[in-house]
């Protein structure tokens, strides 16, 4: 019977990226996915690789390291995934937002990140279809995007060339420990048993279910989001465009209130515009805790459309052709869990990336490589600090 160095549970972007880095490092790896590759949260996101929506400090540093890893991956992967680096623009609606934004940019530029304030004339020259009353913006140079599913297939494609054994349309029935409490094997629903000493739980919103198999309570909850897909059309905006209030919605800042319809507040709606390589665009975003319900709702769709028109009035005449919903793996401190588990030697968690799964996938893969192999992964981050910050221990 073949014995694997590691078995990854979950074939979303996180599990796939881990499979890429571990097989590149020479490990013998299997990946188990209950459906097709990239069929869960990865298939219902917008493919962002951002530093702009992160808090100054470690949050930004981690995202920036990951953003740089995309450059390297772009040289190494074979299957095309529409990697674009157009930067992003945050829109400022009020003087109050302007002051917060200015402070934010000051702090980020002092830390070496490429951002700048755009005044009224600059922002309207850059994006001529913007609503007249937008007072300014923040431009972030390094933000990028990929077509998320193709990126994930690309990682799997390369990992398979490196020898990855893929078990898609297979689910994990149980994780079996030996008498010393160490990982011994993974039992699949079809009855097959895979021998291994390491299991990596990269099951995203479903990670708690996998954690239960080794008696762990993993604090990840699904936070639903919905997206509208526009028809292929003339250019509306040049790059990713977000309302500055998005960050407030994301972090739930208490001392800040947008002047919006209560319905938009209720569904956590904030304007996000994402032009795609297919010449159409996506409109987000919403945030709701509704358990595992990933159906779209007409009320949220209406709210998303209303908020889009507020920033780009000329979108009125463009058609929405589709809406979809997905479940973000939410952790209450907004950091993913990328960690070994003390009580279960050989069990690792790499989940809980909320809306940052695509962007943080490379650094997550690298960190898991470091945790399992113990090698120096050669990244400009204080590794011990990062490991502590993302540890499963932090909840206890």
């Amino acid at each position: 019977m073949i014995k694997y160095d590691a078995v990854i549970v979950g074939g979303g972007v996180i599990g796939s990226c881990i499979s890429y880095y571990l097989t590149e490092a020479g490990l013998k790896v299997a990946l188990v996915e209950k459906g097709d590759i990239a069929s869960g949260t990865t298939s219902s996101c917008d493919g962002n690789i951002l530093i702009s929506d992160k808090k100054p400090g470690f949050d930004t540093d981690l995202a920036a390291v990951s953003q740089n890893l995309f450059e390297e991956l772009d040289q190494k992967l074979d299957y095309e995934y529409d990697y674009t680096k157009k930067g992003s623009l945050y829109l400022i609606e009020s003087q109050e937002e302007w002051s917060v934004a200015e402070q934010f940019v000051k702090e980020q530029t002092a830390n070496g990140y490429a951002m700048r304030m755009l005044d009224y004339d600059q922002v309207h020259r850059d994006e001529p279809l913007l609503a007249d009353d937008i007072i300014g913006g923040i431009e972030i140079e390094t933000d990028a995007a990929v077509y998320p599913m193709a990126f994930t297939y690309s990682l799997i494609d390369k990992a398979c060339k490196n020898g990855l054994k893929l078990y898609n349309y297979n689910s994990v029935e149980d994780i079996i420990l030996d008498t010393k409490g160490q990982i011994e094997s993974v039992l699949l629903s079809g009855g097959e048993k895979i021998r291994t000493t390491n299991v990596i739980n990269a099951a995203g919103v479903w990670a708690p279910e996998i954690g239960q198999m080794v008696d762990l309570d993993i604090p990840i909850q699904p936070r639903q989001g919905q997206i509208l897909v526009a028809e292929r059309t003339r250019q509306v905006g040049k790059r990713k465009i977000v309302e500055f209030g998005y960050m407030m919605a994301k972090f739930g800042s208490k001392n800040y209130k947008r002047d919006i319809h209560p319905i938009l507040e209720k569904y956590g709606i904030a304007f996000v515009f994402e032009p795609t390589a297919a010449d159409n665009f996506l409109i987000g975003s919403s945030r709701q805790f509704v358990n595992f319900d990933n159906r779209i709702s007409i009320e949220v769709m209406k709210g998303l459309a209303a908020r889009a028109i507020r920033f780009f009035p000329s979108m009125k005449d463009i058609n929405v052709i589709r809406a979809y919903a997905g479940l973000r793996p939410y952790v209450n401190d907004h950091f993913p869990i990328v960690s070994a588990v003390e009580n279960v030697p050989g069990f690792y968690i790499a989940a809980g990336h909320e809306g940052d799964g695509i962007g943080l996938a490379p650094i997550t893969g690298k960190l898991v490589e470091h945790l399992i192999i113990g090698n120096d992964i050669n990244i400009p981050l204080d590794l011990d600090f990062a490991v502590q910050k993302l540890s499963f221990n932090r909840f206890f």
Partner: protein
Amino acid sequence: MKDDVIVCRCEEVTLGEIKEAIEAGARTVTDVKRRTRAGMGLCQGKSCEIIVQRQLCKQLNLSSEEAHPARDRAPVRPISFGVLGDEYND
């Protein structure tokens, strides 16, 4: 039908590309859609879905229900941002 026949006209996806996606692991119409973009365009699969489904059944020996489980899908027809957003646009 030849492999270079365009099955999804909106996204210009050929039968050959659909066959490749199925070989790579796709088992449902939605799997094929994610891998090839077939069905992601303006008509949202109204033309190509049935051909993709037929190909899945043929290649993987599936029933039509297995190849195409029902999914929620809105809007049924394209609707403008203006009409959709009217109620909460203040």
